[in-house]
């Protein structure tokens, strides 16, 4: 016991020694001592030598209060020669900071004067890193947790090896320059300027919001991206959008490395309130919807085709052999959509497909016209081929290879493509309805009209293929229900009111209180309940189909037969009037205005 006690005590003693050594012998002291010695040998001035002799190592620090939160920069504790021109040729940390005319430094009487004095700016305002640190690892931010490692010099161990090397270079420091030099054409920040242009040119603004620049809502708000994310995260998110969030539908833009870097620098410079503005300026930018002005793209013969490439349409859409895998195929656009539809859809996608996620791009009108004109020329119908191949070429992208409605882009379409394997639905509808859906399209959805692209026998062929391959069961002969062709109840305020009351009582569980198809039960239901505010769709459906659907239910969906739950024909008439009324409001107001 006593021996063990003695050994343990000895350990304590040793550890104390190690701790004392560890805590009291700093590397920076050695750097400072080396500096004093070398400066003394370089000095030709007796007084300066005496001063250097008298100096002993101590922590040097600059307290910077002019730029955001108070910064305590102790960098000059090691980099003690940073302002001593005699040390220009030395190795770090005893190298003096270079002078540069581009940075605004001026030479007077053979001596350089800095534009950005260290006493005013400190170090971390430009370089990032941890100002309070006194150990290389911490002060340079090499530990994985420091949010702002030394920009352009240090990569953290957790950063991805395949592009970590690309994250070095003083280009990245421009993000810090741009905190004060906010002019869009400031010569000192070419990458930021280029990144800002790319942010518009590559349509980033369509999905992402940056206060005062854009108002997209599909992607994350990037107003403070530079504050929240490190450059490796930004790079990764652009190059490989799904690396961080598997469900991200941000397209892969396949940008050149130079462009990625410019975007990263630009995004790194977005930190909410920058040094050049007050929080009031920021608020104003937030409140005023700054209209994005995109300069017109190429004009001339092939302008439309060129614009499709320039504006990165194929980052989402398919055209020829380029396929973004998010949005519909444009290859037969001239056959399936007319120019009016295209122009309407460009200026506001939701005017034609109310639940479309396509951003409203702010291209100048002539750009849209040129793209529309080009798309209108895509009138080559698909070659004649067996129905199975026709299905694969035209339908599978949305309805899926297996006809289950899980095509490549189905996730991004609302309403979702029909599940063609759902027997209950597929075999309860007359063949004419499917033919009509294919030939005329379904209004208010992504299903276009194929009548110009496919001959009637081709349509029939594809339909037969679908019914035999996916649905498999033969069509059931449905006894015609006793439903009126026209709504017998005249639309009136009382009728609409009564219809709304029934709707709120019976229908909101699935169709939602706003009738937008997003009721609480809708999460568990496939196919999803209809969005009854989809005006284009509602207008395309006649009263007979509405009556039939409500009174006798829709087979193969969650819509029950309401006649079994006590709804009379008059009740349904009121509901139909209500549904029609919420979809006509806008139009009638417009009419009233005209």
């Amino acid at each position, binding site marked *: 016991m006593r021996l063990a006690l003695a050994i343990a005590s000895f*350990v304590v003693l040793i550890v104390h020694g190690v701790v004392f050594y560890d805590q009291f012998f700093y590397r920076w002291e050695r750097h400072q001592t080396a500096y004093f010695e070398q400066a003394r040998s370089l000095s030709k001035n007796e007084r300066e030598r005496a001063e250097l002799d008298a100096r002993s190592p101590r922590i040097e620090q600059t307290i910077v209060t002019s730029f955001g939160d108070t910064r305590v920069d*102790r960098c000059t504790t090691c980099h003690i020669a940073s302002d001593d021109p005699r040390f220009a040729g030395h190795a770090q940390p005893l190298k003096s900071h270079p002078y540069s005319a581009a940075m605004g430094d001026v030479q007077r009487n053979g001596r350089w004067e800095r534009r950005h004095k260290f006493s005013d700016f400190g170090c971390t305002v430009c370089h990032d890193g941890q100002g*309070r640190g006194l150990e290389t690892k911490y002060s340079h931010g090499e530990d994985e*947790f420091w949010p702002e490692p030394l920009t352009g010099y240090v990569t953290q161990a957790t950063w991805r090896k395949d592009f970590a090397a690309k994250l070095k270079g003083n280009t990245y420091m421009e993000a810090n320059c741009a905190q004060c030099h906010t002019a869009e054409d400031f010569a000192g920040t070419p990458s930021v300027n280029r990144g800002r242009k790319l942010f518009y040119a590559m349509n980033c603004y369509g999905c992402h919001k940056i206060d005062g620049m854009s108002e997209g809502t599909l992607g994350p708000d990037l107003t403070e991206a530079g504050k929240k994310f490190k450059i490796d995260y930004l790079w990764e998110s652009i190059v490989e959008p799904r690396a961080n969030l598997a469900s991200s539908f941000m397209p892969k833009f396949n940008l050149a490395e130079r462009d990625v870097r410019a975007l990263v620098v630009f995004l790194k410079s977005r930190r909410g309130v920058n040094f050049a503005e007050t929080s009031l300026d920021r608020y104003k930018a937030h409140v005023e919807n700054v209209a994005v002005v995109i300069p017109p793209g190429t004009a001339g013969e092939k302008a439309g085709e060129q614009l499709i490439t320039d504006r990165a349409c194929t980052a989402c859409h398919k055209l020829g052999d380029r396929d973004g895998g998010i949005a519909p195929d444009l290859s037969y656009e001239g056959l399936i959509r007319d120019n009016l539809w295209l122009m309407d859809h460009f200026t506001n996608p939701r005017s034609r497909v109310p639940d479309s996620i396509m951003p409203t791009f702010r291209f100048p009108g002539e750009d849209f016209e040129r793209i529309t004109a080009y798309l209108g020329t895509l009138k080559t119908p698909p070659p004649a081929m067996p129905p199975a191949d026709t299905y694969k070429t035209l339908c599978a992208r949305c309805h899926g290879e297996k006809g289950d409605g899980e095509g490549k882009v189905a996730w991004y379409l609302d309403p979702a493509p029909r599940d063609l394997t759902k027997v209950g639905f597929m075999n309860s509808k007359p063949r004419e309805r499917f033919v009509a859906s294919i030939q005329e399209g379904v209004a208010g959805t992504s299903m276009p009209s194929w009548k110009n692209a496919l001959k009637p026998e081709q349509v029939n062929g594809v339909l037969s293929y679908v019914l035999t391959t996916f649905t498999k069961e033969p069509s059931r002969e449905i006894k015609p229900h006793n439903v009126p062709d026209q709504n017998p109840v005249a639309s009136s305020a009382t009728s609409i009111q009564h219809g709304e009351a029934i709707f709120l009582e019976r229908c909101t569980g699935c169709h939602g209180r706003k009738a937008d198809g997003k009721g609480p039960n809708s999460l568990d239901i496939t196919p999803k309940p209809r969005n009854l505010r989809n005006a284009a769709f509602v207008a395309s459906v006649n009263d007979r189909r509405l009556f039939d659907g409500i009174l006798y239910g829709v087979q193969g969906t969650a819509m029950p037969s309401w006649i079994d739950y006590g709804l009379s024909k008059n009740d349904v008439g009121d509901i139909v009037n209500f549904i029609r009324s919420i979809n006509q409001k806008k139009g009638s107001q417009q009419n009233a205005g005209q």
Partner: protein
Amino acid sequence: MSTLLPETKPEKGAWSALKEMPSNVWSSIFRNPLPSTDLERASTSFTNFFLHIHPVKVHKNTLRPIYTMGLGLISLFLFFILVATGILLMFYYVPSTTQAYDRMLDLRGTVAFGIFLRNMHRWSAHGMVAIVFLHMCRVFLTGAYKKPREFNWVLGVLLLLVTLFLSFTGYLLPWDQLAFWAITVGSSIAGYAPLIGQQMKFVLLGDTTVGQEALLRFYVLHVAVLPSVLVLLIAIHFWRIRKDGGLSRPEQPQCETAVVKMTLEPAKKKVYGLQGFVRGPFTKVGNVPDDSVYAWPNLLLAELFVFVLTVSLILLVSLAFNAPLEEPVNVMHPPNPAKAPWYFLGLQEMVSYSAFWGGIGIPGLMVALLLIVPYIDRGTKGVGRWFAKERLLANTIFLTLVILNVIFIIIGTFFRGPNWAFVSPF
């Protein structure tokens, strides 16, 4: 001055007074010389303020390392380290959301021994939670909570809870991402309590979310309120050990006759002082045949050894591993997954199955069960032995619960990735 030594008469004046001063001062403080007889050994224990907490004699069983494993003592010494390092850290810390993190950086970079103090404090805190828990396991598995030690067991359970809460409140103070989100998760678990959950959370945080108010409250709880409560409870815990007749030990029938003889005989002759009325088993002095040894030096040496061992371990760990310090708090950017401190990860894992039962129901039941277990399990058999056969049922139930909890903690710590999905750490 030294009243105990009558042979030293006041002699010729100032010079000899000066000469004898060191020994006089010494003997005035430590009234006994280093003991060489049993009487002196006994009086060493009861004349010294710091030693009189010890009994004069302790049972040999108490000193068997394999019996107690010194777990209670280790907890105490860790607490001493925590108090010492904690007070030093208080000189540098500011409980302000704008300054706390900067102070951590200062501790790491500029303050002499700063990082080392923080390491010691951090690792001792984790160690104390673990050791207090193990101490409880030891007491249960040796059946030491049985009559007459029931209440001391209850105190012990309370001590465990206070220790957990102390560690939890300290977790927030660095004000980094780790702290912020761990406390956010931890306090949300408290919010699942029925009826008063949300109010309790609000009182604890002083706000609906973790912020400046929460930081200040946690700080005050951590440095003032909870340590005081802990010290008080520890004092009672120790006092009860003495009053309950020392540490538990296996029953020894031949010893009991001696006790009976001893208590009966003087009762006929002697007039009792006030102390004589104190009931309960009392310490035996004299040539009673039993298995006890003198506290000085046996117990003292054992304690010293445990102390030195604890300190050296903590020093070594603190030298080798730095206490984690993550990014400064970013309320908008939660880590995925956000995890509570490790000792609450078992709870968080259970919460992922059911918010109420995992966070409040089951832990509440467990604590309640722990508190009343000595009043349910009234058998007197199997005290003072590890895994006594007579206590097979109780030990099995206890061990099952402990192992379940440990498994949950391990799953929560190592096997849970983003969105609390199961991941393999290998």
